[in-house]
């Protein structure tokens, strides 16, 4: 053989991986660290809200419904429709909408998938 045939580097790589640490992250036990600015479940602070309805108007997925809370219109977020673009936060004149780091939103019941304006203030959770 005049030209040296090249061996596939996979031969070595695969062999080496038998003893290497797997790249797997053990998710349910170890929760991943969510980066700053992550777009997760909404936190709505009712104290800042001026009931302008800009968030609902700009929402591309029409996921925000203005509901009556103590006689004022407040946004209610339908998480099953929400595309987590945070245009609402950008449109909000008073920064009443913020993002949390909560991403485990799965639910067996569709009616659970809402962020209610009256309960969202403290935590990102309403359950």
């Amino acid at each position, binding site marked *: 053989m005049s030209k040296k045939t090249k061996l596939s580097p996979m031969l070595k790589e695969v062999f080496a991986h038998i003893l290497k640490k797997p790249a797997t992250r053990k998710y349910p036990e170890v929760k991943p660290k969510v980066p700053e*600015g992550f*777009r997760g479940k909404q936190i709505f602070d009712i104290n800042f809200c001026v009931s302008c309805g800009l968030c609902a108007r*700009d929402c*591309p997925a029409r996921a925000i419904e203005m509901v009556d809370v103590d006689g004022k219109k407040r946004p209610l977020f339908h998480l099953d429709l929400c595309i987590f673009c945070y245009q609402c936060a950008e449109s909000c004149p008073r920064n009443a909408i913020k993002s949390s780091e909560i991403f485990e939103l799965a639910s067996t019941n569709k009616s659970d998938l809402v962020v209610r304006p009256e309960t969202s203030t403290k935590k990102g959770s309403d359950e």
Partner: protein
Amino acid sequence: MTSVEKKILMLLSDRLGEKILQIQTPQLGKVFVRVNAGVLRDALRVLFEENESAGISAITGVDLGKSIELMYHVRTHGTIITVRTEVPKEDAGIESITDLIPGANFHEREVADLFGVTFDGHPTQRRLVLPDSWPRNLFPLRKDAVIASIPNKLENAAVSDEDMQPSEGRTLIKVVMGPQHPALIEPEKFSLRVDGEIVKEVEPRIGYVHRGIEKAAENRTYLQDIYLVERICGICNACHAACFCQTVEAIMGISVPPRARYLRTVILELNRIHSHMLLLGHAGLEIGYETLFQYMWRDREPVMDIVEWLTGNRVIASFITIGGVRRDLKEEMIPKIKAELTNLKEKMSFYKHLFDSDPTLKMRTKNVGVLSKQDALKLCVVGPVARGSGVNMDVRKDEPYAAYDEIPFNMVTYNEGDSWARLMVRLAEIGESINIINYALDNLPSGPYRVRVPRIVPAGEAFGRVEAPRGELFYYVKSNGTAYPERVKVRTPTFANILSFVRIAEGGNVADVPASFVSLDPCFSCTDR
């Protein structure tokens, strides 16, 4: 106007003379030529004869009320010449141009489906994007279409598809791929007529993922449309947003601050890297190389991480907006990103070595699904598919947008035209993209990252192009002076490339169909919209 455009316009007015009704040049590098419907073919013939590598980029239909305007966007010498004409809405019809340029095939079928324009002399008159159950005389993109009661196909779900029928004629067996098929992550149907192990005929049926986004864009505001068009394709989402925003910015006549242009470049290139790696891994899966798939997708994860740091979501960036970008890049993030990219670059040399030397990989991809340069030009393919066949075409070079005019990079072309060449183009482009991002991060200008823009866009029209990972992405936006666009046309790169699948599959081996198909980087959510 550039000198090339001047030359072409001279030639057009030489040949057609009085028949040209109007020439508009609303922006630099955008030429619209208005002709009568009868002269359209002559005008296009002039363009195609002048440059043999000219191709059709898109055909846009716009409902003007009494008539339908058709725009033929011809790509020639790296720029776009648009020939426009009008046909009456009642009994809309025009001669087909598929004999002049075969690549116009699907573009015409799409317009026929959505606008009800019949193209005389078109080889296939079947449905392309609309579902089988759709009423015959309802054309969704016409403004007067009333879409209220469409028969729901679920009631007669038991009716078998035509794919269950025995194939007529000789020894040809009909093999159906899809709509649910492991080779296609997405639903789409390809009926192959097979003689032994050789594919004789391919009939694609797309439209399974058609969501009517072009229509939906018309009744949402420009702001909402950014997020809507991002979801045309989750893989190249940033490119869609960038292209839409550029086009709207062109109508508004605003320019984006330099920092935003650089940040756009960064996110667009990250998009390209992750899309190419996804494809290369998927190609591994198609040819039964699971380890390649696993490694490639493992190494893709850091890229997703960078996107998440930058934008807050791993996949859909929602980063680009009209007037700039939505977030700034923090200084302390830059070294982190660069470190990840350096790692990735090392990994890439491993993959390059692998693609060069693995015998089984080469057996499955070399000389498989060959698309010659002539065919590539005739079928008007774009992006890595065209570059794999030796066609020099890259919007980033031809019509620089974002910050590509300031960043040096190389265009990668291979001449073989087979699956291997197409995969190698992508592999090499990942390296180029890493260099581009590094350059952009090193030379990131300071200053604002967005300018505030009004919600209402002045009346006007524009089109824009972006080199998406799969090739030239084309947007046409027409504004009527309100906050809602009059028409948004999207021609995705995969829609331009899908026709070439028919060409490369016919005459090949059945077992090669998945492998050669994946090398085109199909993405049906783009194709159908």
